[in-house]
């Protein structure tokens, strides 16, 4: 394990922002901390970096305890050997590109010649070598971002930390940089923790995603697990688009809507909860014209009427009213508002989720 976090607690005065969370990051693994703002993800990252002092729990990096406040052990940030990319890049405005990238080396007393060599290597990797003598004010946002990346990797850190590094870039640039960060991380084979509130980033880059809410981990798993089998309504909602149908236990072992329509659900390993919903991803629902067909084994069929239609280019998103429940559907076929339609979706894509406590939602 490159990073091991056990029962991490962080408080600001009487306000607890991280409630004893635990997770691991394996060697070379890419982990995202995903959640809405205020969920404690950035605070967790800052505790890893040593920029915040944790109030409880143990953090180990490469088997060495760097934070254990109960044992009075807190290794300061500058001794943790990490590389970090900040949201606003934090490129020092009074140093050149080379000065910025070389800082982690020169501050540790690496000889100037080696610094120059390694700086060039790092800048080469991010494609910025030709700008090494520039000042930060002469760089675009995307270039500053690359400098920040080069500075984070130049010292051969044991872990890489990213604090929403793409949120200040425009959409096009964001996609390119996403791919580049991922490639770089794979080449360096270094344990990485990536904080974001963008589910697309988290899903596309991570080996595993840790979803956080109110300072707690709601679910941790591979991107596929999160998308296909979210633990609760919050995760389902936050990761990807989804529609929800209230369900309750019907006769026998089956499930049905409040209006009595039986549904075949994927309920394997679903957590215990007071109330449940069925989650449907819009792209896994098939929509057909007219009222036809009946449920078969493993396939649910609902009849409904088109309420809204939003043309999005690659597909159209329809909102369909199916006996009182509203279902989002993505389709490339054309329907008019008011059309009668039939929805078909297989059992495996109709996932049972627990409705999170309403007090906290």
């Amino acid at each position, binding site marked *: 394990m490159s990073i091991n976090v056990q029962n991490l607690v962080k408080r600001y005065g009487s306000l607890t922002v991280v409630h004893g969370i635990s997770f691991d990051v394996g060697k070379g693994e890419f982990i995202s901390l995903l959640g809405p703002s205020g969920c404690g993800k950035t605070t967790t990252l800052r505790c890893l970096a040593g920029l915040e002092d944790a109030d409880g729990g143990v953090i180990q990096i490469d088997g060495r305890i760097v934070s254990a406040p109960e044992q009075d052990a807190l290794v300061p*940030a*500058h001794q*943790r050997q990490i590389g970090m990319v*900040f949201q606003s890049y934090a490129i020092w405005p*009074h140093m050149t590109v080379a000065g910025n990238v070389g800082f982690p080396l020169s501050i540790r007393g690496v000889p100037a010649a080696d610094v120059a060599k390694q700086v060039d290597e790092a800048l080469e990797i991010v494609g910025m070598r030709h700008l090494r003598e520039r000042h930060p004010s002469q760089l675009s946002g995307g270039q500053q971002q690359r400098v920040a990346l080069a500075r984070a990797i130049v010292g051969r850190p044991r872990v890489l930390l990213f604090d929403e590094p793409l949120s200040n870039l425009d959409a096009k640039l964001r996609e390119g940089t996403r791919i580049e960060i991922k490639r770089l991380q794979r080449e360096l084979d270094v344990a990485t923790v990536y904080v974001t509130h963008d589910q697309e980033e988290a899903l596309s880059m991570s080996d595993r995603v840790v979803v956080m809410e109110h300072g707690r981990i709601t679910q941790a798993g591979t991107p596929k697990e999160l998308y296909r089998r979210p633990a609760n309504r919050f995760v389902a909602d936050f990761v990807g688009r989804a529609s929800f149908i209230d369900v309750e236990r019907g006769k026998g072992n089956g499930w049905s809507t409040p209006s009595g329509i039986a549904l075949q659900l994927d309920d394997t390993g679903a957590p215990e909860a007071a109330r449940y919903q069925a989650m449907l991803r819009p792209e896994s629902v098939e929509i057909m014209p007219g009222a036809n067909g009946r449920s078969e084994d493993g396939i649910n069929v609902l009849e409904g009427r088109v309420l809204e239609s939003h043309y999005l280019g690659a597909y159209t998103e329809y909102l369909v009213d199916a006996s009182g429940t509203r279902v989002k559907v993505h389709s490339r076929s054309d329907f008019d508002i008011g059309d009668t339609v039939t929805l078909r979706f297989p059992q495996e894509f109709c996932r049972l989720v627990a409705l999170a406590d309403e007090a906290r939602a």
Partner: protein
Amino acid sequence: MSEQAIAAGPPAVSRARSRAGAGGAVLTGVYWATFLIVVAMVAIPVVALVYGSFRTSAPGLPGEWTLQNYAGLASSGVLSSMTTTLIIGLFTSVISIVVGTTIALIVHRTDFRYGNIVVALIGLSFYFPSFILAMAWIIVGAPGGIYNTIIDDVLGMSWLRADIYTSAGIVFVMSLHQVPFVYLTMRGPISGMDPIYEEAANTAGAKPHQVLLRVTLPLLGYSLISSFILTFVMTIEQFAIPALLGIPGQVTMLATQLYLLVRFTPTDYGLAAAIGVALSLITGAAIWAQRRITTAGRLTTVTGKAGRLKLIPLGRWRWAANLLCFGFIFLGLVMPMVILIYTSLLKWFTVNPLEGMYTLRNYIFIWESASTVRSFTNTLIVSGVGAAVGVTLGLLCCYFTLRLQPRGYRALDFVVSLPFGVPGVVLGLGLLWAYAYLPLPLYGTLTLMIIAFVTRFLPYATETIGGQMVQIDKSLEEAAWVNGATRAQGIWRILLPLVTPSVQGAYFLLFMAFFREISSAILIYSVHTAVISISIWSFFEQANWGLASALAVVATLIIFIAMALIMRLVPTARRG
């Protein structure tokens, strides 16, 4: 400020429209009235000073044109006081910058335990008048003063004797006076700096002191240079400290030489004016440089996201931090106050408190003497009325230069900022020249005093109010117009309420500045228009330490009480 105006100004098209929309004849009238008053206030003394510097005689007497005064600048006497001025200015600025910045770093960046009390006491010492500080240190450090008596008679270590009437003494007391200014100017940049730059250095492996040296201080560079230049300017135009300490010890700075040439025979008003012009050129150039540096060097390091930064542990240096902060407060505020209170209670001055004959007669005298009571009333009138006049003018100037921007607003903006470069005692000399010729019966009136003070401190008002006004988006007023408000209603209902905090702050700032002002008053007061600062000065010059101390104690208490009251009533005044 002109740069701000340009930056904040709308593009040409919308400006043309807003000028057309200004329409109101009243507003135009107010603009030209403001323009004339401000230009007259600033231009009259400046022009008179330059005129005087080319005349052979004293103000009001027949004389001829001459260049002799400027030739006099090259005399060995003037050159040596020029050198003295620059050297004392440099030493004082370096010491003040180092101490002030260190205190700011200790208070705002480390786990120093007494931040609140140090901030409050440094705020107090900022308002502690320079001439009162100098008096207290004379009582302590004069050859026959408390310190040397203790050294000689009690400790018998005469090699430790020190003399306050020297260049070193002046540098010491001036540094004590300037440190709070440096602290206050560096506090904003230090506590408002985006902590992310330091955090990045921290995660990159830099130890706390390396972060300080390689990231924090370089990023503060422009603020440091700017604060350094302003401190230098305030030091070389200082009048009270060099006069009180330097005249007895024959250490002459330019401001004191000017004063001596006017007040003591053989007088030479022309040479004094030429020195005034030279001194103003130095300070003016320095301030111009400071403006250039601050606008050129606005690195985007200040964000408002401060406060998340982890504090640097002082560790085993805690004692040094405590010593520096509390040592400064002791030397700059507490001890001078104690000494003044002690001196004011003595019948005859003695170093040994056990031998002292204590009395309240000095305080009773203040209460009973018509002249001291009058100087109190004068001060309250000048400060109260003057600050109101200054704030009104400042508010109008800001509105015209930042918002309405009618024809000639750049000239107004320039003229308003001029007094920054004119030392107080030079301004006084200019007014002395001017009102000897002008057919206005102002000489020897409180009105002249108010004119002098308002002129000198008008930039304080425009900086304070303008600083807030540029931050108020113009669209807030435009929204009011769209919703049916006239331009005047827009000002009255939207703009004024939004700038009220800075207006209150500016009034407070001017009131305090007027209350302790001495340098621009020293050459133009008369018996009837003496203010408290002048009375204290006169008593001290007559070697009446007891009375001067008593008056100083009362004046200081009034300043502190006013400060506490205003801080409580107007929380935003703290920004001032």
